[in-house]
């Protein structure tokens, strides 16, 4: 191999790829007919989506009474799922924005998919605040617009309103960021396409020509968006945590929530990225782009954030004890030992204990362990939100009103539906756009000149094996 190999660092892209090979590898998924596995997965995801839609219509038609929430527990699976999805939607922007600003080049292997995941997760999340209300037909009351009722404005003191702004901002910026990154890659696909696909990608790529001016503006925009996104990564889950932190309910009324929620969000986001990337790299044969090094890096983030979350859990317990405030003390006592002890147990085991395995390099670099752990973390973080929401509400101040809660098929169905939405979108995404950012990966290829040192020989061999290839527009600059 003619690739320069650093004595200190392993290359970010393995396999001695040429620019051309990268293009070939990464565009391939959008160009060939879907595999049987994809079709089966799509049918499964689509069915889940359809069932979820049915459950949503059922909820709106019948009323929230089709859920098992009650006079004590006003939020259950709905808001648990909302926070869970929002958390998952954090990795993408973190990877794209913060890691971009910190010049973590390894991010290029996974940022595209992670950003896509973010968008889809936020869509799933945003669904819940909408459908969990009693009267969805007046949900526009949330929006601050001049009206003939006074005008009557929404309550700017309410964290739910902050949520609305935080999530819509986050969604728009994430979408912009994601799409901006996609434009040169869409152009690459366009240049290789024919017929309808060419028209489609021509439209999607906004007339990208690959001119230096385009690249310059593209880079500037990416940086600006990264700058805007960075505080959003911190703010969105902070504001989501305010839904709880600004309340008076023991177990919710906690100043630790913002950092704890953000760490948890990154934790769960990375776990979901792992889950998806491990499957994607296997199915799309992207092992050279999403390497074990990537996986290890992300595992390190998981270990770090998991430990932060663990510290937060312990801090909560300590502060509850230290506060001397009986309601707070009981709230945490009850989380751990009360009727929902299993959810607390699950949360602790999945989020705090199991990621500690990643101190050991062998596990960090093991595909199987990583996959297993990512599933654990996904489950654990769902439990965390359930613990915070349902368990806390179930037993608060007045023992007379204590209650219990288990979901109905409708609530479960909606959750399955959001999984369906998420995976349907993701499956469409892998067929429509390159899952790894072609342009960005090419940036980090260390082999710029070296590829051509042996080029004659190499070219001759290549030429003998392959027909001439078209000139690539997108890859050179």
């Amino acid at each position, binding site marked *: 191999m003619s690739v320069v190999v650093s004595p200190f660092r392993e290359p970010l892209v393995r396999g001695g790829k040429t620019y051309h090979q990268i293009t070939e590898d990464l565009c391939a998924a959008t160009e060939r007919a879907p595999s049987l596995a994809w079709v089966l997965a799509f049918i499964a995801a689509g069915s889940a989506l359809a069932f979820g839609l049915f459950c949503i219509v059922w909820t709106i*038609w*019948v*009323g*929230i*009474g*089709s859920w*098992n*929430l*009650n*006079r*004590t527990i*006003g*939020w259950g699976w709905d808001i648990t799922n909302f926070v869970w999805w929002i958390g998952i939607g954090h990795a993408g922007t973190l990877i794209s924005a913060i890691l971009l600003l910190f010049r973590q080049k390894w991010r290029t292997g996974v940022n595209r998919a992670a950003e896509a995941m973010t968008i889809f997760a936020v869509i799933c999340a945003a669904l819940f*605040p909408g459908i*969990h*209300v*009693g*009267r969805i037909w*007046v*949900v526009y*009351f*949330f929006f601050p617009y001049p009206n003939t009722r006074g005008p*009557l*404005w*929404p*309550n700017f*003191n*309410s*964290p*739910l*309103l902050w949520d609305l702004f935080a999530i819509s901002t986050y969604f728009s910026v994430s979408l912009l960021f994601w799409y901006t990154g996609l434009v040169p890659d869409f152009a690459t696909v366009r240049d290789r396409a024919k017929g309808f696909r060419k028209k489609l990608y021509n439209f999607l790529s906004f007339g990208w020509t690959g001119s230096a001016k385009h690249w310059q503006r593209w880079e500037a925009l990416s940086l600006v968006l990264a700058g805007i996104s960075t505080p959003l990564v911190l703010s969105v889950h902070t504001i989501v945590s305010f*839904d709880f932190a*600004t*309340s*008076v*309910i023991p177990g919710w009324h906690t100043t630790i929530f913002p950092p704890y929620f953000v760490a948890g969000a990154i934790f769960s986001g990375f776990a979901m990225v792992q889950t998806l990337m491990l499957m994607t790299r296997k199915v799309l044969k992207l092992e050279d782009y999403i390497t074990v090094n990537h996986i290890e890096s992300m595992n390190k983030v998981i270990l770090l954030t998991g430990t932060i979350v663990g510290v937060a859990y312990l801090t909560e317990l300590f502060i509850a004890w230290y506060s001397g405030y*009986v*309601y707070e*003390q*009981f709230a945490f*006592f*009850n989380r*751990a*030992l*009360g*009727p929902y*002890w*299993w959810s607390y*147990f699950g949360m602790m085991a999945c989020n705090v204990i199991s990621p500690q395995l990643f101190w050991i390099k062998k596990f960090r670099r093991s595909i199987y362990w990583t996959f297993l752990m990512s599933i654990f973390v996904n489950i654990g973080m769902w439990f965390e939100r359930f613990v915070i929401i349902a368990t806390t*509400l179930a*037993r*608060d*101040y*007045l*023992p*007379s*009103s*204590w*209650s*219990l809660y288990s979901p109905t098929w409708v609530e479960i169905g909606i959750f399955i539906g959001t999984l369906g939405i998420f995976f349907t979108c993701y499956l469409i995404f892998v067929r429509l756009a390159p899952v790894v950012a072609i342009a960005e990966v090419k940036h980090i290829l260390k082999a710029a000149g070296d590829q051509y040192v042996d080029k004659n020989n190499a070219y001759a061999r290549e030429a003998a094996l392959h027909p001439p290839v078209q000139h690539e527009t997108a890859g050179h600059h």
Partner: protein
Amino acid sequence: MKDKNAGIWIGNRDLNQDEAYIHQADEQSRIRPDETGGLQSNRRDFLRIMGFSVGTAALAASCKTPVRRALPYLTKPDSLVPGIANYYASSYVDGGDYCGILVKTREGRPIKIEGNSLCPLTGGGTSARVQALVLSLYDTHRIQGPMVRGENNWESSSWENLDERVALRMPATSRVRILSNTILSPTTKKAISDFKVKFPNTEVVSYDPISSAAILMANEASFGRKIIPSYHFDQARTIVSINADFLGTWISPIEFSRQYAKGRKISEVSGAKMSRHFQVESYMSLSGSNADHRIQIRPSEQGAAIAFLYNAIAVKTGAASVVSPPLAEKAASALSKVADQLIADKGASLVVAGSNNRDEQILVNKINEILGNTGTTIDLNTPSYQRQGNETDLVKLVADMDGGQVDAVIVIDHANPAYDYPAADAFATAFAKVNTRISMSGTLNETANLCNFIAPNHHLLESWGDAEPKQGLLSLIQPAISPLFNTRQAELSLLKWATSDHIDWKSDAPYYEYLKSNWVQNYLNGSSWDKALHDGVFKYQAPDLASAAPVVIDLAALKISQPTNAEQEITLFETVNMGAGQHANNPWLQEMPDPVTRCVWGNYLAVPVMFDGVNKFKGAFDLENGDFVNLSVGNTTIETASIQQFGQLSGTLALALGYGRTVTGAAGKHIGTNAFAFCQQADGLTQYYNTVGSSPVKSRKEENLACVQYHHTMGVQDIDRKTGQKINADEAATVFFTYFGLAKQGFQGSLVERSVIRRANLSELESFVSELQAERAEFQHLNEQTLYPDYSDLYERGHQWHMHIDLNACTGCGACAVACMAENNVPVVGKREVSRHHEMTWLRVDRYYYGDVANPNVVFQPLMCQHCHNAPCENVCPVNATNHNSEGINQMVYNRCVGTRYCANNCPYKVRRFNWLDYMKADLWPINEPALVEGEDSPFMTDNLTRMVLNPDVTVRARGVIEKCSFCTQRIQEGKLNAKKAGRMLEDGDVKTACQTACPTGAITFGDINHTASSVHQLANNPLNFQVLEEVNTRPAVTYKSRIINRDESIEA
């Protein structure tokens, strides 16, 4: 010129008959058929027009536009102003139960019952049953006209037809029996005596399903008077009640609650006095839950307990002893101390017993006599007529009917022996042998269903009538609405069949005239009839009774019931809401939680609950809440759901009567199980306990266990098995997983240290108050440490509505909760929805047990929206749907509510209620209206008849919005308008909330706290006051007064 114009002209030119103008005008107004083209039409036009006509006709015919007629009065009645309520004084009479009431009507519809404050018995108090009366008027199950039994079913008839057929079947020689519960009405009795003029072989058989016959018989034996005396619980310093639930159901609970509360309220801390109440019983009754001490006995030990108490007193006072059956040692030692206290409070004590054994009641009389209570706390000279029934008459009637000795039976009021007679089958068999069986019930019940004729009586609110609950106290019943259906006053039916000439049949209102003339002749003695009618109550000078001279009784000959050796005994009792089952079809009462079990829609077998010494409460026989059991008593086996009941004596069970109706409306049918068959008879008197043949056998699980409170305790104590320490067992029981033995005793203090309930014993009152004050000062100090600006000055201006609730006066009876449902159109949601904790009640009465796990004390706490000045609900609502007004009221704007439920989550008091489904049919979608009862296709309150009960001043909420207590904002508005109209300032008492007026004990006070002369302002300064969760800094507008009990810790019961 002028003539031509005939005085009408337009402008000058017309006036002057200008030629050009006339021509022009003619041209304009002329019809020119030739220019319109005539009516020429072709085939296409024809088809077009026909198509349109047919189309519109089809549309018009098929789309039925609902026509809602709102007809104005042609001539408005003087008394009726739309939007202004009228109140009519009347009486609540249900068998022997009595309450003076005011009926609130709006636009001619009775919509609410208020207590009549002029009534000396109840003083304006009510009960849950009284509050629910108005709903039974609009019962869809009411019989709509006379009915005659056909071959297989009931056939509608006319009154003429019915009267004719009755006349044919009932010749003057007939042996007629009038079967009733206690008859309180003197005029009804007069009507019956007039009936007897034609039918001389008539006898009245009065019985009460929950009988007090033994008291009548005992007083006849002791004093020669077959009466119930007047009791004065307010004058007793020591009250001993043996199985008499005088606060809940016994004889006159509203009156007794009122008296009782007088002796329990504490205003001054220093030198505070209150009565001491011992309740001797096996199950947790409402009275027992209010008692300072409960002494637990098995139901069959009732006689032994009375005899023991008698002997203990007799020994010390030198009276003769009786042979006492054996009594459990614990109860005996407690009772001997009770005897000491009774003797110490001679003349100011009161012993009552619910026993239905004549000789035991004689012994109770004897106890009171020795204690000198007869004449002080027991007034034999003012007899109460509230229980007159004697079931021995019913036993005789059954025998007579069986022997063919009866030709006709007329069943009046709620009498329903086919359901509530212990040997109901025997009754039914004998009843079938009677030739003519007439029911006057307004609704179809088990007994009416066995009759040949139903001559439905008016509803109470449609009737004229009277009642004499106590000698010398008369109370009028006047109609508040014209009869809704083709019904007839029961007395009129009797007089009609008797073709009586004591009544003016030509009058428009013959029974009114009959009633009035009876009053004028016998009672009014020159007083104004109109005033009596206005006041609702009238006192007349009853002939003085000679002072009761005790009859000498041979005490040795008394037959006291003997305790059994059975492993299990069962108590059968009446509940506050259901009575003897006559209220089964009243959804408000079905959905009203039982004050003690907190269950709704059914009766549950109460089984004792024990602490396992580790972290679990275990029901006897390993029964969990909601387990169904097969229970055998004698030859009868029934299947009933069970519930773990604190305070239930080990080895005993209890089951409520009044459930399991088989013939009634949809709401009440097959709700719970009928336990009347479990009652036994001794000497013809019904005994409300029995021995259980074999242990209950678990059969299945209740799917919809409808209990509104599932955590019941706040510090019940028992011994930890490992350490031998006394711990708060309920706190240990909050642990579901011990983490392999790490957290066994739970978090000790997690329940008792909450500032939800404040309670103390009278003996430690002063130290309690100083602790309370210190703690409150600490809370207030902490609450002042805030970053937020202080808005206190805003709350010192204008009206600030405030509520004060005295936990010592509250007996937990639940009248307020039903009054709230009635006043505020709170939906009834049915059993399944309640089982999902979807109950909609704005006001609930929380009940907590504390103290000894086997025999705890109880505290009740009415809880409604606290109208916090720092309301957590308000700042989290994203759309400002809930906010604070300038008078300190937390308002709920239904129209603005989106339904995020964030406010409900953030409410520390959990008083906000969400409309999960369309409980009131206020929505477009029919699918989300839950059926009240399985199998019914529509929810409660969706038919036009039931909807008449809705309060037009209160919005009916659609699904998807939050609702909660509004402090009866409509009443505040009404009070303000009335003051404004009268041109004066709002005064204390102008505004009273529904819960306040319903309360029989005056536990709730409402008013403007900024008004220094208001009673709420004065009460708010009591040192015993506390606020629930004060440290959360919500600044509630509801203040509670601590619960103080008067326990003698030296007594172990």
